[in-house]
């Protein structure tokens, strides 16, 4: 998972694409350690455990859980992985280009 995500961040420009993590480790130290060990360059909320406020509100019962959100803030894909995740991001980036074009 981590190498794939790192590759996504390297591949897409930061002004158009971001990974936002929600970490559910038991302690913030464990979370920091995991970020360091796996060389995660993106930002992560710290949720204070698996029954943290964010995971509870988002009804997350399994980890990892993935949502892909478009530039307008709309949920567009849920629980896509691997090649499916790549394709989802490509689609949304392409749509962004389309909308951004002058008439």
């Amino acid at each position, binding site marked *: 998972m981590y190498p794939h995500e790192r590759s996504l961040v390297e591949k897409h420009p930061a*002004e158009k694409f*971001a990974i936002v993590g929600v970490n559910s480790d038991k302690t913030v130290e464990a979370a920091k350690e995991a970020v360091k060990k796996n060389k995660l360059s993106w930002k992560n909320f710290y949720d204070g455990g698996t029954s943290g406020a964010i995971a509870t509100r*988002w009804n997350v019962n399994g980890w990892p859980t993935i949502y892909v*959100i478009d530039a307008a803030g*709309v949920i567009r894909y849920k629980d896509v992985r691997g090649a499916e995740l790549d394709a989802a991001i490509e689609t949304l980036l392409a749509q962004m280009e389309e909308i951004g074009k002058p008439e």
Partner: protein
Amino acid sequence: MLIPSIFVLVLLPMPDPVVTVTAEVAVEVSRTDEVTQQQQAAATEAYEQLQARMEEAWDEYLAPLRDAKTPEQRDAVDLDPAKSPAVIFIAEMLKFTKDHPGTDACLLALGEVIRMSSRDENIFWMTEEAVETVLVDFIEHDGLQDLVRFAHYNPPSTAILRLLRGIADRCESRDVKAASLYSLGKLLGKNDKTRREGRDLLNRIEKEFADVIFFRETTYGQKVKGDIFELEHLQIGDVAPEIIGKEIAGNLMQLSAFRGKVVVLDFWGNW
């Protein structure tokens, strides 16, 4: 092909929502009471052997996936559905249920048959038959709650949905009713066409079964809160709810600050 379609035809005209307990059900229940301890023990032993053989077959079938080292290698694995252990063992399990009717192991085997139920037309009649047997022979069985409690993790096959509807309609036990309505609501909620019905069921659980225990210390009341929020606000096409919190380094951060970018929101943990 003829035989399956006949079975389906016979089974389809089921009396749907309100089903009163009929004399037939009462007779079937008393029949299951007559199972002796010896029969129970023999069935359990035979079931464990069957299970072990099935696990071995799955292990072998899935070995290429297990041996794949990279995601690319995994994607390249091409498992032949015709050789899936489900094809053989669904029939073996069903035969087992006939050899050991009314036993605890019989109910476990029926559960396996229903779980393995795919959309494969050739085996559809087997799952239908298994559902029917659960509803007739086991409607008062203690093991029913375990059968339905996590049923929402299965794909929403016709057989699973019919099983859950049937149990919710006919079972007297509040605990079992809550468990089957919950799993049914969750499964219906996954499909655009049935989402509203799913949400209505979860709302009903919140009103009528909030105090029933789901698992360990969690009640269905606690459980459905998140599920209802998910159905109402976390579907594809919904604006992502705001998240305001602290990032790992301690700084305040909010999800909406990433507007204008494509965002992969990843819930993760290092364990």
